């Protein structure tokens, strides 16, 4: 520590870090005046998943503005975050992980986006004793990385059985499943198929597609030939919209039931008229009458002048959750881990009230509503079953 070059280099890093915190955390509060507490975020700001990193930022900043506005945490200390761009590339997340674990200012890490990228870094966080909090990581094995690996991402074990039940409630019997062939889609498809069987439904076709796939016409011939009475989409909003459009443009009238991940205003924009009649369920729905949802939606609209989507909501929820843990249990890295295990009933847009299962290090019991698109808008399902033949 007494070697001159290392000191000067550290000086440069410190200057860069200061620059970073200026550029990436503008939502600094006036009210909180103490020494800031820094959260490390690892996520995509460039590359093919950059859109999701941008969505996160909106949720983060809204939450920080609010928390710091009412005086921060731990008696007046403001929260801030450092966002390191990983491009959701495992080679970069491991470097970021080393950067974060060796920076004493970082008290907890949030992200990364994909499981490929997050799980490559898990062992570094686990061994260094810094909480890796993945809020979009639904890979069933993500939190098995160790007792410092936590997630409030909605477990597919919760979500997919609900989707299957929705399909059953709608009166469908024979289902064709189209799923995104990533770890998320594959895991979801497995759980969905099990749940569908339990609910007495038959999966007549199952087709996995690549994330960069754009053309589904031939896949839809396979689907048509399997004679389903509904098509299940386990998709994100962009690919879900592409498929919905093509289902209608090849002349299929089969009803579509999509997993909650398509829930986004963008889905309707991209799918156009084909979005009408699509059934979905969502953990987050701006029209939901729960007060915490309404409060979030109103604040979000006031700040950004647009409707929030699921990614905005989970990012917001995550900051609120971490802030309450820090406020209650302190800024020590281990205290934060223990705090996650002890904290109960944090207000949450997605869960209503969030508490962790200390065994799985996940939150159970995400709220969800049944939705259907009518006239280019998501709305609550009115309970009317579609006519089936």
């Amino acid at each position, binding site marked *: 520590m007494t070697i001159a070059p290392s000191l000067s280099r550290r000086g440069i890093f410190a200057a*860069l870090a200061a620059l970073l915190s200026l550029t990436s955390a503008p939502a600094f509060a006036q009210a909180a005046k103490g020494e800031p507490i820094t959260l490390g975020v690892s996520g995509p700001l460039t590359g093919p998943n950059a859109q999701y990193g941008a969505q996160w930022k909106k949720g983060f900043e809204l939450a920080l503005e609010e928390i710091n506005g009412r005086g921060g945490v731990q008696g007046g200390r403001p929260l801030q975050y450092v966002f390191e761009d990983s491009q959701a590339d495992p080679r970069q997340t491991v*470097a970021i992980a*080393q950067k974060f674990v060796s920076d004493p200012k970082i008290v907890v890490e949030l992200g990364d986006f994909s499981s490929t990228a997050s799980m490559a870094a898990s062992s570094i966080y686990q*061994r260094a004793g810094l909480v890796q909090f993945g809020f979009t990581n639904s890979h069933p094995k993500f939190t098995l990385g160790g007792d410092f690996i936590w997630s409030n991402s909605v477990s597919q074990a919760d979500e997919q059985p609900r989707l299957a039940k929705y399909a059953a409630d709608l009166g469908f019997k024979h289902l064709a499943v189209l799923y995104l062939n990533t770890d998320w889609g594959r895991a979801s498809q497995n759980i969905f198929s099990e749940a569908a069987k339990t609910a007495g439904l038959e999966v007549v076709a199952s087709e996995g597609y690549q994330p960069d796939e754009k*053309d589904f016409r*031939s896949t839809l011939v396979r689907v048509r030939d399997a004679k389903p009475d509904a098509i299940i989409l386990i998709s994100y909003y962009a690919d879900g919209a592409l498929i919905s459009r093509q289902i209608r443009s090849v002349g299929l009238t089969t009803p579509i039931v999509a997993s909650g991940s398509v829930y986004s205003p963008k889905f309707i924009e991209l799918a156009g008229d084909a979005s009408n009649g699509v059934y979905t369920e969502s953990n987050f729905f701006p029209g939901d009458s729960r007060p915490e949802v309404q409060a979030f939606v109103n604040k979000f609209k006031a700040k950004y002048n647009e409707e929030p989507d699921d990614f905005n909501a989970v990012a917001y929820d995550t900051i609120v959750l971490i802030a309450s843990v820090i406020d209650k249990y302190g800024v020590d890295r281990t205290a934060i881990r223990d705090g996650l295990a002890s904290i109960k009933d944090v207000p949450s847009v997605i869960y209503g009230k969030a508490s962790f299962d200390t065994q799985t290090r996940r939150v159970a019991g995400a709220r969800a509503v049944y939705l259907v698109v009518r006239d280019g808008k998501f709305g609550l399902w009115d309970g009317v079953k579609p006519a089936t033949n």
Partner: protein
Amino acid sequence: MSSFVDYTVNGLVIGNIYALLAVGLALIFGVANLINFAQGSVYTIGAYIGWAAITFLHMPLPLTMAIVFVGSGLIGVLIERIGLRPLQGKARIAPLIATIGLSFVLDQLVQLIFSASPRALPSDLPDIRIDIAGGSIGAMDVLIAGAGLSSAAVLYVFLRFTKLGYAVRATAQDREAARQMGVNVDAVNSAVFAIASALGGLSGLLVGMYYNHIDPAMSFQATLKGVVAQVIGGVGNVPGAIVGSLLLGLVESYGIALLGTSYRNLFAFVLLIGFLLFLPNGLFGGRSVVHSEPLTGSFIAPSREFPVPRWAVIALTLTAFALPLIYNAPYLLQTLTNAWLAAMLALSLTLVSGTTGQMSFGHAGLLAIGGYASALLALNIGWSPALSIPAAGLIAAAIGTALVFPAFRLRGHYIAIATLAIGEIVSLTILNWESLTQGAMGISGIPPLSAFGHEAYSARSVYYVCLVVLAALALLQTRLLSSHLGRTLRAVREDEVAARSFGIQLSHYKSIAFAFGGFGAGVSGGIAAHLYSYLNNQTFDSQLSLLALTMVILGGMGNVLGAILGALVLVGLPEMFRFAAEYRILIYGIVLLLLIRFRPQGLLGAV
């Protein structure tokens, strides 16, 4: 039976879309003998120009198309001016890297200006559909087919019957001769890029409207499918590109019919390999096409190796070994570890592509084989990583050589495209072979690096493991290059005919190069697997192959030290630009362009 008709119609519809992409690529390849990786970016830009014209200026479709055509054409002129013209007479490979750098810059610009999230691109075409069998064809399909066919027809007439067309063809046949006959070669190239880019941009617009979806990440896949289609049709052949695209669309569609959606790209790349092996000139290529391909040697810049004195190499190595003792910063060490792992890949590639002259665009496939081999050996059989990693190297060497062996009779761009396809096939096999690889779910819980019961997981010990392996591989490769074997490999690169007449068994020596290279890459992938503890089909993607190639060219083809330096620079730069957040890949692309512009033979020179 009616399904068969549907699959056929659908195959033709998507083939139709590939055709628009392939025509532009074919034109540029035919004249400039260059795979233009920036073509996909122009396609993206065209789509966004169209989006802006429709959204902000509310233009009708014909006017939008005209604006996109002109705007993208101008971008093409710019690409030629920046990426191609200053590099003439330099290394043949330099323009290829320049187009990769340009595609980074252009894609990032689009993303910064228009944001990363996908946008809807509605068309005001009437919603008329013609029912065919069980499916239907819409107005947009007809428009796209019309655009593809008419642009091919116009190009055909232009190339056959106009004066500029003569000049273009003359330049394509023999640039020097054309120049001596008074053809302004630069102007011809400029015109070709303008036309090809205008078509590329237009196809971006039409395809964007077709799917009602545009996003800044759509360019790479577009380039990939366009390249496949035009090789099938016959490289550089415009009508061939259209027929090749239709065939590609049909095979993909029938592939989905046979095995399912996740096998689609597997069919595409197997088709490509089939063509390269049995009909390398494509459907329409004359016999002459392969012969006009340059000998592989001319791919590499004639240059003098930058002399690095032995004491400097020793001093640098010692510094690398001493660094963790002096400055134990985990982030720095991890970044360097990443660089060492990348350097192993670069060493492997520089031997195969630089020394032996076999361009490989699919080197990430070797990493993937190595990574999965080591992970599976450790998890399923319980081998220690000390054993499973070298075994992974051997497995990658064996499988990699076996896969590429049939392609050894190809040269230049053809071997590059073949390796690209092999890399994709490896990754798609991993995705689909779920019983072994667990497909997209990936393999988790891979044990950390360890030897003799000692686990290595601190940043410092991992750093040392990688550095020692890298140093050993580099030393071995240096020895190899200065032996008779190295001389023979270079002889293969310089002139295959001459080498053969000296009694050198070409495929034998190419196998040695691939086996040695495969070992290094496999070891790198194996170490990475234990480092990350989790792997899936996306861990080693095709972008990584391009990155490795960039490292090798940047360092100097065939140059051992250059490969390590290239890896260090290309892993280090994005980390150094972290402060620039969203702008860092843009800066990286610009730096890459500048490096290629001013040092096309690589930092340390080709050997």
